[in-house]
């Protein structure tokens, strides 16, 4: 179980529903470990600032997270979390392992800039 304040995605169906209902989505797929927690923390912190983005997490060991683990964009990844950025349901960016706030916001600003930041 992920002890974060982010929206938890529990199933592949829920994942598909969130992608269909939101233009910009960031999904952090990980565990409660030292590489993942800082990324959840950053997402929680900027959630209010980036109201145009739906921030979610998904448990890496949940079999349903195959929707992320099987993405071609993560085929070479060897470090969690796998963080996926979707625009209109399509993957526009994916990162592996721990990230800084500057790295995350730089992706959000570049990939989701068409919509206005709150």
């Amino acid at each position: 179980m992920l002890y974060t304040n982010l929206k938890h995605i529990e199933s592949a169906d829920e994942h598909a529903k969130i992608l269909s209902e939101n233009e910009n989505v960031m999904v952090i797929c990980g565990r409660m470990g030292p590489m993942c927690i800082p990324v959840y923390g950053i997402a929680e912190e900027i959630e209010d600032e980036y109201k145009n983005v739906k921030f979610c997490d998904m448990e890496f060991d949940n079999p349903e997270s195959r929707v992320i683990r099987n993405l071609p964009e993560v085929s070479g990844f060897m470090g969690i979390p796998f963080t996926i950025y979707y625009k209109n349901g399509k993957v526009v960016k994916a990162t592996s392992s721990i990230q800084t706030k500057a790295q995350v916001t730089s992706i959000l600003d570049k990939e989701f800039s068409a919509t206005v930041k709150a």
Partner: protein
Amino acid sequence: MNAKNHYDAIVIGAGPAGLSAGIYLSRARVKTLIVNEGTVGGQMILTHEIANYPGVENISGYQLSNIMKKQAKTFGCDIKSNIEIESLDLVGKTKSIVLSDGNTYTSETVVLSPGGRSRTLGVMGEDDFKGKGISYCATCDGDFFTDKEIIVVGGGNTAIEEAISLTRYASKVTIVHHSDYFKATDYAIKEARNHPKINFLMDSVITAFNGHENLESVEIKDLKTNETNLFKTDGAFVFIGYMSNTEFISNKVGLNKWGEIIVESDMSTNIEGVYAAGDSIAKRFRQVTTAVADGTIAALAVAEYLHEKNN
């Protein structure tokens, strides 16, 4: 001086030491700002389970961090996290700090509690292959290396114990260590030496990580012969200890040769009005409980200092 941005105390770092200082200071009606470069909680959030924090039977470090953060905020403490410190002036009666949000904040006192972090090798390619072959956490990423050949860098307890745990996944683990002896416990060394999957490269250091999309090889220098050889590997786990996050105050406050802040028993430093607490100070034991104690002492000393100064 901007009154809105002026505080009685600025706490740098939001691990258990900084949060405890924030809780005590704010509860004593000392106007306090906590500034933190990373996620609130410091290294505490990285602990999966804390079972020896008195009064709490079992809790994750992440949950305990969030409770401490909530407590500090409830008492009126301002917290700015995931923000960088552009400059810091600790000299004089009024201390000042410029943050990456462009604002300058001033205060009567400062508590330094920047904590520590895992050491990295700092060699070519290390940043490029993080998450693509290089890892700093066996529990997190070990399963990506099932049936692969990997190296483990380090010679302390963590390195040896994690090398042993990684044999559950990897087909071969080579421990690369800069010295000819290990600092780990005898039983861990014995278990590693007797393990059929573990090999050793002593007196050796990594000088570069190479690959295309993912890590493919490392350059290893033999310190006895000064020869550098290419060593094919699928992964590298780095466990070379922790260091204090004190680079940003290296010429501003008294540090020992390991970069740890030197403090008196009341957590005061060599600069008037500047106190320190937590893993970044010079001390032997580093636990959540000791950090909480340090932060409490620093806060009480700050409150006393402010009282004497203003009366």
